[in-house]
């Protein structure tokens, strides 16, 4: 059982490059989330989606874009990579919004991104 799969696990980018972080879940969950975790800090919500075709901003959306064309996939796009976007990125999914039920989020193992 795969759960939430993130690719790649590691990536180094140059300033100004673009890339897409992939996230896929096989649990048929409606809700999907993207977080970033900086050293010594908690996870911060970048974007989330409540279902295919519906996305919304989280706490720190600037510099990122998302799309949700299918239930399974929720890619995160960095258009112009900046050093401030060096972080570990986690994708998660849940059947319902975690705060409204006892349905916890299931996390992928993260993508470690360095921008030099």
């Amino acid at each position: 059982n795969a759960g939430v799969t993130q690719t790649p696990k590691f990536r180094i980018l140059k300033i100004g490059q673009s890339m897409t972080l992939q996230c896929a879940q096989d649990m048929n969950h409606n809700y999907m989330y993207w977080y970033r975790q900086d050293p010594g800090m908690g996870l911060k919500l970048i974007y989330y989606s409540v279902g295919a075709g519906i996305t919304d901003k989280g706490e720190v959306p600037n510099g990122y874009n998302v799309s949700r064309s299918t239930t399974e996939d929720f890619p995160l796009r960095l258009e112009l990579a900046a050093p401030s976007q060096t972080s570990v990125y986690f994708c998660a999914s849940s059947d319902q919004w975690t705060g409204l039920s006892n349905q916890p989020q299931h996390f992928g193992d993260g993508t470690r991104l360095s921008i030099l």
Partner: protein
Amino acid sequence: DQQVKQNSPSLSVQEGRISILNCDYTNSMFDYFLWYKKYPAEGPTFLISISSIKDKNEDGRFTVFLNKSAKHLSLHIVPSQPGDSAGYFCAASVNNDMRFGAGTRLTVKP
């Protein structure tokens, strides 16, 4: 602004003793609280949660206590085991807003 704080970056306890991890929050509107466990190079995994209408929730060796007047929650692990050594993150939620603390690294010594 950090609405959820875990002021102890690390905690070390002896195997078999109690581990108490603390979390403070500032937003009184939070209505759901969760604890996640995280091993290095892995994503967080859900541990236990509590609704704001309760003050205690227990699941095996793990108990979460919520003190709304103090805006404080704690996770108790009894008895602590070496396999509990990991990072622990508290999170708080209201509507579509979810905030995480910076985490506490627990080390349980044999």
